[in-house]
């Protein structure tokens, strides 16, 4: 299904997340990912929301989100925007082959080992959602045991 990325600037105060997620639920938009954080101006927070749906559907949300008194601006990001996600994962490596596999994977995606303890390795991945999906697919294929897999959700910035 098509994905649309919305970048929403809001007043940084309690209750805004509730209003935004409530509105998306009410209008039956499916949220694929939602992240929120303060901007460089701490009175302003920024939401990156990925919804499943067509551009037309996303355009409808723009007006509705704008209606929320605490929302400053809503923008649908172009397809060529820079999109990143972070994954923190604990993996168990049972063989030398798996270790080599992981090292090779580092060529394709930004992987950083954070610590290693016996067979267990904790890694951090930073890339696009698609690359992360591909990486997940390949380690499953290599039978690497996933102890924990935590995704940050998408953040994105326009070019």
């Amino acid at each position: 299904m098509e994905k649309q990325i919305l970048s929403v600037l809001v007043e940084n105060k309690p209750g805004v997340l509730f209003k935004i997620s409530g509105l998306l639920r009410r209008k039956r938009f499916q949220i694929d990912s939602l992240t929120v954080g303060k901007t460089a101006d701490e009175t302003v927070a920024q939401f990156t929301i990925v919804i499943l749906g067509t551009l037309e559907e996303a355009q409808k949300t723009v007006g509705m989100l704008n209606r929320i008194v605490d929302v400053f601006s809503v923008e649908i990001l172009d397809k060529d925007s820079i999109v990143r996600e972070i994954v923190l994962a604990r993996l168990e490596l049972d063989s030398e082959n798996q270790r080599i596999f992981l090292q090779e994977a580092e060529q394709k995606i930004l992987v950083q080992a954070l610590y290693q303890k016996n067979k267990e390795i904790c890694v951090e991945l930073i890339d696009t959602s698609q690359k992360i999906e591909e990486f997940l697919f390949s380690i499953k294929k290599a039978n690497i045991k996933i102890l924990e897999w935590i995704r940050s959700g998408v953040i994105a910035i326009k070019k």
Partner: protein
Amino acid sequence: MIGADALLKSLENQGVTEIFSYPGGSVLPIFDRMPHSNIRRILVRHEQAAAFAAAGVSRSTQKVGVCLATSGPGATNLITGIADAKLDSIPMVAITGNVFKNLIGSDAFQEVDMVGICESIVKHAYFVEDVEDLPRIITEAFYLAASGRPGPVLIDIPKCVQAGEVSAELVKKIERNELFEMHLPGYFHEMSSDISQEIKSIELIKKAQKPVVIFGHGVVLSNAEKELKDFLDKTGIPSVWTLHGIGAYDGNKDLSLGMLGMHGTAAANFAVHHADLIIGIGIRFDDRITGVIKEFERQAKIIHFDIDPSEFGKNVKTDVRVCGQIASTLPLITKALPKNSSNNWKDWQKTLIEKKQKWPIDGRKKGKLTEISVIEELYKKIDQDDVVVADVGQHEMWLAQRFIGKKSRKFLASGGLGTMGFSLPTAMGAAFSGHKVWSISGDGGIQMNIQELVTLVQDKIPVKILILNNGYLGMVRQWQELFYDKNYVDTPLFNPDFQKIGEAYGIPSFRAQTQEETQDVLEKMKNYNDGPILCEFVVEREENLFPMVPAGKSLGETLLNKEESIED
């Protein structure tokens, strides 16, 4: 000065003269101080009525009505009235008490998360953390409620904030009625489109052969009746209106075709179905006026004027979107169009005038007393400044189809939410407009807020109460008749003696069963201004409402009666 004083003083500074309220544990500090305020208290008997009455003030005047309830059940009882105001874009301020701040979130006695519950049914909601914020919040709440696209605003105030001491500095500011600076950095209510949309509108209108205007509540809410009149008078474009557009333009003109939609007039529905250009002014193209959407969009270009950009393209695809205050956008178009532009649609005008004569609003039966005959007698009696408040159901549509006034804010109905029990408490609020108010309900709806009869008596509020008793939930019964094989489940009502009920409350009460009795009693009601007066009209039981667009059909398939449609 404590928070309660600051609240009341701030409300006075906003021009509030009456509050519809009901006391309780979590609003005791406010009630304790109310006798010191100039604001009149109206003690309702159920909080739902307080919300409707507050909105009744807003609907009938240009003021912002206010209601007040305690925490928990008092607050939740307001919900239906708040939702009703939201769906009809009615400015209103609802104030609720809440438990002490240190108890919030602990499931304390009579605690509910009112801000959370109301999230989807208010324009904005406040939880007041600090007594020092109170005057600013009141200023913001009234501004938000009334500006842009209006709507209800909730202010939830914990009891400790109501009782908290106000700083000396703030006391001075409040007492001097100084302006409180608002903090609404995300609120841009004055949105406007670029001029290209107006230019496109003018082009489309010049090219049109069969244009029609649909005007609605937005015209009334933005006080743009004059601008609408200028536009329609100059262009000669035939017009139809929505339930809430009633009275925004003179309905007696030849090219005024009536209300459109599910129970609109045949001529209005015909015009919209066959138009090649639809100009929607302050409307939201909701499902009760469009019929099946695909057919609605079929052949016409659509121009949409509205203040709320999220309405554009929400229900129908529009070709031109003019965003902004109608009073400032519409005159640009009026000015730019040549005086003789109606030459382009002379034939169209003629056709529609013929259709209007061919399909008059009718349905009156000889002999028995029917709801329609009572309503027609009522309209003979009322003055043009009188306010008519419908409840919900068949009578509401019969009233709407026949409304003869030339002024807006004179026909009040629960349009969006369609709430039974609306009429009596809304009429109570509308009585504060200073005009004569007629409340019309069925035997179903009247029972949903009948407790307010005592409020009307206690406060001597002059509402003329008509109960049209056909012993059924008429609208639902009609659907059961037409689409569920006359399976009348729970629509026949066992009723009390409404005349005796009225008398028990101390209201002069009557019963009419014939035309003659109806005429007599309406005359009595018209001339009585010493508080409420009531009459039960015993009418024919199974009267059906037409025209009708059945669910899933287009406006072109409007039924004139059980057998005939306008296509035939």
